[in-house]
């Protein structure tokens, strides 16, 4: 079936892809015909297939690996020390010596932009990790047990969502104190609702499914059923959520440091570099703010495109 689809229009390909996935849930003729194909092989084939029909996702994957590479090895590869000032070359435009120019203190903007990758990624990854863990726990319990746990956690989540999220993050950082850790906590708190909701929905529809009842009858404890049998089913939609969320978390953290929260000036970080460079935009020294800003945009775009691509792989019907 897949082979036949390739000879048709992209739209047909897309429909064929959704049908192939739909077949996983229902009993269709195609499913019966392809049941002999191994599950992993089928998934791989599907991934290759989705990637081919949407080259943007492929670019996003490449960008993702570049970002990870820079975060891991960037600080060792940069030509200058990101903190080294040099008044002799202050505010020099981009040149062969300083690819991205230098800032008001003569620091190399390229080195600073590359070195900042690790910190920006670290903040958002830790924040998303915390939201993932807390959100999964709360969402699983609420979805599985229902009752008062569901009611209380639902109320809490509604309350968080009742705030404009960036504003809430500002309030949290202002209240807890102006440190990088608190930026991470604030970003984590405002992201918890998204995870908790996805997990709750995924767990809730399966709490009395056949395989769950079978597991229960064979004497498994509730927690084991939840952790081993139900929760893994929520992981694919969670992957999509994580990818979309990472981009958002980076924007959020950079926004907070742009308004002067969290990261302190000499530290290379994109948000604060844009904030510092903003003063020089009106006098024409654009490179100070441009390069950290464009890097920020590149990273967020990569994660967003990746999230979209993952959604196509995981659940084509959800595509909007």
């Amino acid at each position, binding site marked *: 079936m897949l082979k036949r689809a390739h000879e048709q229009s992209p739209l047909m390909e897309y429909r064929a892809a959704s049908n192939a996935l739909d077949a996983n849930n229902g009993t269709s003729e195609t499913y019966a015909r392809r049941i002999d194909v191994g599950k992993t092989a089928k998934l791989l084939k599907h991934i290759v297939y989705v990637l081919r029909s949407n080259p*943007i996702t492929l670019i996003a994957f490449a960008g993702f690996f570049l970002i990870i590479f820079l975060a891991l090895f960037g600080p060792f590869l940069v030509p200058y020390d990101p903190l080294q000032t040099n008044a002799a070359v202050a505010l020099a435009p981009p040149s062969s010596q300083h690819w991205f120019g230098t800032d008001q203190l003569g620091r190399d903007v390229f080195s600073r932009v590359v070195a900042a990758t690790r910190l920006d990624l670290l903040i958002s990854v830790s924040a998303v990790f915390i939201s993932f863990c807390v959100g999964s726990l709360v969402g699983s319990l609420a979805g599985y047990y229902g009752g008062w746990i569901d009611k209380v956690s639902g109320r809490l989540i509604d309350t968080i969502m*009742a705030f404009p999220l960036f504003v*809430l993050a500002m309030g949290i950082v*202002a*209240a807890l104190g102006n440190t990088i850790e608190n930026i991470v906590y604030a970003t984590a708190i405002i992201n918890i609702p998204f995870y908790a909701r996805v997990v709750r929905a995924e767990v809730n529809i399966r709490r009395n499914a056949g395989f769950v009842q079978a597991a229960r009858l064979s004497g498994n404890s509730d927690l084991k059923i939840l952790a081993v049998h139900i929760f893994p089913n929520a992981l694919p939609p969670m992957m999509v959520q994580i990818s979309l969320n990472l981009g958002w978390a980076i924007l959020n953290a950079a926004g907070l440091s742009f308004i002067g929260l969290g990261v302190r000036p000499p530290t290379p970080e994109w948000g604060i570099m844009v904030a510092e460079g903003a003063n020089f935009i009106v006098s024409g020294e654009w490179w100070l703010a441009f390069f950290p800003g464009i890097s920020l945009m590149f990273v967020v*775009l990569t994660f967003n495109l990746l999230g979209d691509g993952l959604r196509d792989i995981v659940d084509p019907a959800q595509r909007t």
Partner: protein
Amino acid sequence: MKHRTIELVLFRLWQAVPVLFGVIVVTFILTRALPGDPAVYFAGPAADENSIAEIRKSLGLDRSLFEQFIIYLGDLARGDLGQSLSTGQPVLNDLSKRLPASLELTFSALILSVMIAVPLGILAAMKPGHWVDHTCRFLVTAGVSLPTFFTGLVLIFFFYYIAGIAPSPIGRLDFVYLPPPTITGFYVLDSLLAGDLETARAAFAQLILPAITLALFTLAPIARMTRASMIQALSSEFIRTARAAGLSSRKIIFTYALRNALLPVITTLGMVFSFTLGANVLVEKVFAWPGIGSYAVEALVVSDYAAVQGFVLSMAVIFVLLNLTVDIIYTLIDPRISLES
């Protein structure tokens, strides 16, 4: 029928009560979670033991947390959000003075965004999988990936520094103009009402760049939702019937499909408000826009906590009320909504 509508609206209002209460509790916790002793903080650096104790008493910090919460509720009921340290004014005064600037910016951005996003979504929905669709999807994702503060700076660089079309990005009105007499608090509207075209033009020129910056950021969710609900509407049976009856595709798309597709879009606007109110803070800082966002940023820099928490609370209240309004409008225009949903 009329009676039922009133019942529905009252029910929606009732639903907002626990949310508002939750918002107040969270803000209370935030004000009490201040680093260190708030009394020492509010007393200022020159305070001695006695004045700190006095301030602790006047703030009610010597009582139990529950009593403090009751006092806090009482203060809120009287509209007392505390004093701002930097301006020396009651926070509520400061906020209400600056709110119109923020609202003017937010509403202009949303109107602009809807004007671009809805046609874009319709275009993409008419040819799903087509290159128009892919391009629209990419543009929309790129839009949401733009850090608002960065977009603003890029726009300033091109339109102010390079092209010299835009006025200098400081505030709502160039200092050579006098602000129009306050009617709505929106400068463009007020100066038009006063018949002062020159001031209206100047205010509009100041507004356009920050509004575009904000609008770019909010394009994505609106365009996506329009596309999704348009596709759903176009594949429904009444459209098939309309097609079979030989109606023009123009009439089908705009009269039948779009009107049905816009309902979910209205719901998305609630989420978009959340984005916009947050992004407002950043955009206001970039353009030195004298709204409540830049007020909060200035307060943050000098650790003026009462002002920051007052800002957080009032933003949350505005957001809840906006969502409530959207809900009520939705209830009024969609007869299918019932109490259960």
